[in-house]
């Protein structure tokens, strides 16, 4: 069980929007401590939101079953957890790969 003082290191570059600032160039990557408790909270909220989103996905699409969804996420140097979209720049990110597998798949 993590305590409120435990932290993990995230290596990356602070994203421009994180501090609400605009900078005039690339800033080098740094190892930054992110509080574990905060990261746990954010990951939990992130997965909950994804579950709600995936609940609307049809189990069967045509002749195919949807039984697994893989999601790439990033953890920023401030502990935010973000969905990695197409074309996202690989800066300031630590990647997390989440695989959501249906608990049971009904097959005809």
């Amino acid at each position, binding site marked *: 069980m993590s305590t409120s003082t435990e932290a993990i290191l995230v290596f990356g570059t602070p994203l421009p929007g994180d*501090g609400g600032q*605009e900078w*005039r160039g690339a800033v080098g990557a740094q190892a*930054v401590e992110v509080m574990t408790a905060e990261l746990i909270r954010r990951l939990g909220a992130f997965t909950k939101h994804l579950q709600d989103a995936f609940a609307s996905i049809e189990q069967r699409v045509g002749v195919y079953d949807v039984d697994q969804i893989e999601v790439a996420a990033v953890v920023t140097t401030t502990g935010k957890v973000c969905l990695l979209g197409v074309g996202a720049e690989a800066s300031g990110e630590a990647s997390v790969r989440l695989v959501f597998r249906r608990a049971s798949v009904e097959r005809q």
Partner: protein
Amino acid sequence: MVVLTRGHYSRRADMSLLIRPHDQALELFVNGTPVALAVRRPDIALINNDLAEAASQLVTALQLGLTRGDLGSNLINAASGLAARGHAALNAIFGSVQADIRETLAAAFGVPTIEVLTDEFLIPWEWLYDQSPHTFVGTRDLAEVTSPFWALNRIVSRRRIPRLSVSDPQIAPVAVCRPPTIGLILNDALQFALREREWLRAQAQKGRIRLRELPLDLGTDAWELIRTVNRFCNEPGIDILHLACHAESDTSNPLRSFLDFGHDRHYQIDYLDQSPRVGIVAPLVFLNACSTGVRRPLETFDFVQALWRHGATNVLAVEAAMESRVAADYAVKFYELLLQGLSLGEAVYRARRALIDAGDKVEDIVALFYSLYAEPFLTLQVRDTYKVG
């Protein structure tokens, strides 16, 4: 007429540091007198890396929400603060002659001016710190904690060896038409660069300056970008070339380092050699973008020297990452002071002081990062127009 001139030719820096390369060492001359130490190149590289690392950590702390109250302890922290490392650098470079240097500079009239003459631009001189940071442990007065930085108690400027003579065309008066013309190249995706443009346009409306702007309706075609930018840089009649943009250095392939003008318009520094080849005629280039200043030991390139190779004679650049709002505020302050008649060195110095002393935002501390590669006594002098014939 408005001229960019050296003013009184008898002006001399209060201290000249000549750093001459000699095999594996750099010989240091203070006011023409060899100092009884030669700083080894590996030590210089370590100093450079140390200071760059400290500045980078400061920037990261700012991005993560460093408060003004914590800035003082961040600066003077013995393990990583910029002040602590700046003091260590001062000791490493000057060693036992520090007292003599302080005595020389204390006799200066006004703010001491230090000219660094060198071909090894590896030391961010502005970050040298004159006192032991332990003096300020527990102090929360930011002005007090930052005052020992050379950036805030000296006018520092760098020039290449050999020392230019009075007759050298680079420092002869350059007569231009009144009022001074600023050529602006802008990244309009930067919110605060737009603020710089707004201010410059307002000054132009008041008749204090003339403003030419690089057209922004460019596509992403590299050849069109090159032709347009290069022609603009070559335009006669521009007195100050002002670039408000991103800059990114590619240490693995330095010639691929680029200025980012927004919307995927990346101007690689080797484009300066493309047709039409750039030959800058503007007496001053203000490169208001991140990390365009001092060269890192492992790099063979920097933006300032690239501009020099293409005709620039005086450059104002930035030694580390620059927060865009501060960049805009600094530019405005710098031009206000320059247009009032202060010299380049004075304007650079006082703009730093103005932002840090009066700044209510902690990010203003990055005003320390501006550096001058120029004749510090150059001044925009407004003279009465005269009739010819």
